[in-house]
């Protein structure tokens, strides 16, 4: 019933990624400009090397050319990468997750044939999901436990030409990976009167599509994002994913609170980096005549960090296991709860606390921009206040507890 042994393969993958982070990512991530967050762009050479060891296609099935990682393995890798640099992790995790959802689950064999070979072959090719639009808001707060659909309205419009092709017009904003993506899944409205969402695959360099890379310091997110403008952008008829007006990706990758807790795993990785820095320092810094870890005040602070990390990782792994074993809910082995959302709220709040506590261990050096702790605290704040906020997360959990379902 309960088995936390890593498989030989999981051990190998974790060791490989840990070594990659130590040798390739950490030396870059600890450069002063990166500490100070003046420079956050994920370095292209690191992304290439990561792809060469299989991290870009980690979750894509082996038959299609990936590593076929299950949800827990993907979470282990996400934690390791983010312990090195959450910006690098965010790019790779997004592509890997989308590669599995698109190529293994949603695309038709014909679509796969058209897009898969070049995606697998090109180490620089990332994937993106363009859902967010300017000023769009889930409006969950005002619609909590109300029988109205939540989910941002889609204004990006696709009209059908006589040949069946689509003409897309509109704007998407803060699209993860947009500046690096070879293929972008774009949410559009094909009928302005109907509420349904459709998803079209748009290849990079399609005429009529312009991607503008966002200045990271103006944004509040990890990874690399872009705004996309469509001006009479022609997309072939056969690029529709699923059925018109019923996109299987409409709710994104966190649909229903039962998806793979990848952001949560990255968040744990960030917390771990802060904790490990504090632990190392507490073992060498001497004040009060002894190493500070030998003082109760610092010892118990480190204990609190360790326990928050343990609880968060346990929650992430459980949510990941349920994502791989949805039958466990049906058989009532696992309570019917949005575990992915629960993990999101808990890790964001707990890892924020861990980063602040770690900074306390460093005293004044904990608030200096050229030292790692400042960066860890800022990264923890970004996890806490980007994407689904803890407030929205709690509302979603509360709706689930009330057995409230939106039609």
């Amino acid at each position: 019933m309960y088995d936390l042994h890593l498989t030989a393969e999981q051990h190998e993958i974790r060791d490989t990624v840990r070594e990659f982070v130590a040798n390739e990512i950490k030396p870059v991530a600890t450069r002063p400009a990166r500490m100070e967050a003046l420079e956050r762009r994920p370095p292209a050479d690191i992304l290439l090397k990561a792809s060469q060891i299989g991290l870009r296609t980690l979750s894509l099935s082996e038959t299609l050319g990936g590593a076929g990682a299950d949800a827990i393995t993907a979470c282990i890798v996400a934690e390791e990468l983010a312990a090195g640099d959450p910006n690098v992790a965010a790019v790779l995790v997004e592509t890997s997750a989308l590669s599995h959802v698109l190529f293994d689950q949603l695309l038709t064999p014909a679509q796969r044939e058209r897009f898969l070979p070049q995606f697998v072959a090109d180490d620089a090719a990332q994937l993106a999901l363009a859902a967010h639009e300017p000023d769009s808001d889930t409006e969950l707060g005002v619609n909590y436990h109300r029988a109205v659909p939540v989910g941002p309205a889609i204004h990006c419009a696709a009209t059908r030409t006589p040949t069946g092709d689509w003409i897309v017009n509109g704007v998407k904003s803060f699209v993860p990976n947009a500046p690096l993506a070879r293929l972008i899944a774009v949410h559009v409205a094909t009928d302005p009167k109907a509420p349904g969402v459709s998803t079209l695959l748009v290849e990079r360099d399609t005429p009529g599509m312009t991607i503008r890379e966002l200045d990271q310091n103006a944004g509040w997110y990890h990874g690399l994002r872009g705004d996309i403008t469509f001006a009479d952008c022609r997309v072939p008829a056969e690029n529709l994913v699923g059925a018109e007006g019923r996109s299987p990706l409409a709710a994104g990758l966190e649909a229903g609170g039962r998806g793979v807790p990848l952001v949560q795993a990255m968040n744990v990785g960030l917390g771990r980096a802060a904790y490990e820095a504090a632990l190392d320092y507490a073992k060498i810094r001497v004040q009060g005549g002894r190493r500070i870890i030998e003082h109760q005040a610092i010892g118990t602070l480190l204990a609190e960090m360790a326990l928050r990390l343990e609880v968060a990782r346990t929650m992430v792994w459980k949510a990941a296991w349920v994502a791989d074993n949805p039958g466990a809910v049906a058989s009532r082995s696992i309570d019917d709860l949005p575990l992915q959302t629960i993990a999101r709220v808990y890790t964001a709040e707990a890892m924020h606390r861990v980063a602040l506590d770690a900074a306390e261990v460093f005293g004044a050096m904990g608030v200096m921009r050229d030292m790692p702790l400042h960066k860890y605290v800022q990264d923890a704040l970004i996890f806490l206040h980007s994407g689904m906020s803890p407030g929205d997360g709690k509302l979603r959990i509360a709706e689930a507890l009330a057995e409230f379902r939106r039609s």
Partner: protein
Amino acid sequence: MDFSLNEAQREWQDRARKFAEEEIRPVSLARDRVLDPAETWDWDLFKKGSRLGFRTLAVPKEYGGPGADFVSQALVMAELSRGDSAVSKAFSQNWKWSHLIASVCTPEQKARFLSAFLADDTFVLGKGITEPNAGSDNRLPPEDDPRAGLKLKAERHGDEWILNGEKCFIANGNIGKLFFLDARSNPNVNVKEGVTMFLIPRDTPGFRSGKVFNKSGWRFYQNAELIFENARVPHANVIEQTGGASRLDKGERTGGDLFGDLELAANALGVCMSACESSLKLARSRTQGGKPLLEQQMVQLKIGRMNMLTEALRSYVLRVAWEHDQKLPSTNAGFVMNFSTEVVQEVTQLNMELHGAAGYTMDAHAAKLVRDGIIWTHLAGDAVQRMKVVRRMAKAAK
């Protein structure tokens, strides 16, 4: 019980509020955005504030200063901080030490330094204690270990002292004209007995400031290294007596250390006031589904908690200031300093939650308040700062 302010206190409060609104707030975010930590200071702003009396506020009337009481000082710090926490600190850092000139310097030392300080709008004070390997060890020295604590060496040669060593994180370190420096005049006894306090003017031979630290928040006001290489200081610059430093700034007679505790709490109060205003404004103006955010229960609960904590802090700050003015022995100054850490961090964090709920951007002011608030951890609320207060309390309760 009477919570009303007297006329002088109200006047200082109004003057600081007006200065914060008209002069500090319009430049606060721009100064915060300056990337070079040595370029964040704004002399024009500082001189304007100095001319209004904020630099010399704590100098007693008999020595030619405004002689504002502690309640007025607390009100001014909070109002200035409501405009920008680090600007408030840039002014109050002077009050922290000007009392030393007034109360413990000899008439000869006063003649040299006090009139110059009063006359010059750019005369800024600093105090050097912390060293790379002596932070907590100065605050909470191990009783029997003479190796612990600050090490900057002071050796007497006739009428001169030769100083060698380094201080770090020193407030106003690169712009101060006069520093009160703690140096180890006797390495064989513990830090409480073996430290002498010196007056160090900027032009002391062998003294210079080093790098300016690149802080996460509190950008306006600068911390730097002080470097002493065979610096020569006349014996006439020793404050009181050799080995007497630890007895000088604990506040029994002047409120030195007590002021420092009140200072951080009053400054935190201003940050919280700013966060409360900002969140209420947002909740009234931003809508969701056509309705102001303020109509949502979660938003009301957050704003309620922010204001409740802020008002509790305000009451505690003013009580401590009043206790100082009445010269009542109390450990409340330490406790209000500790308490202000929790309050400033929770209130700024809640403000950020309210501003960040929209997704992938963050309000620059909300982010700044959180960065400013984080510095309280090590200044006011780490374990050492908390245990120090408890030990003081236990000693007083004997």
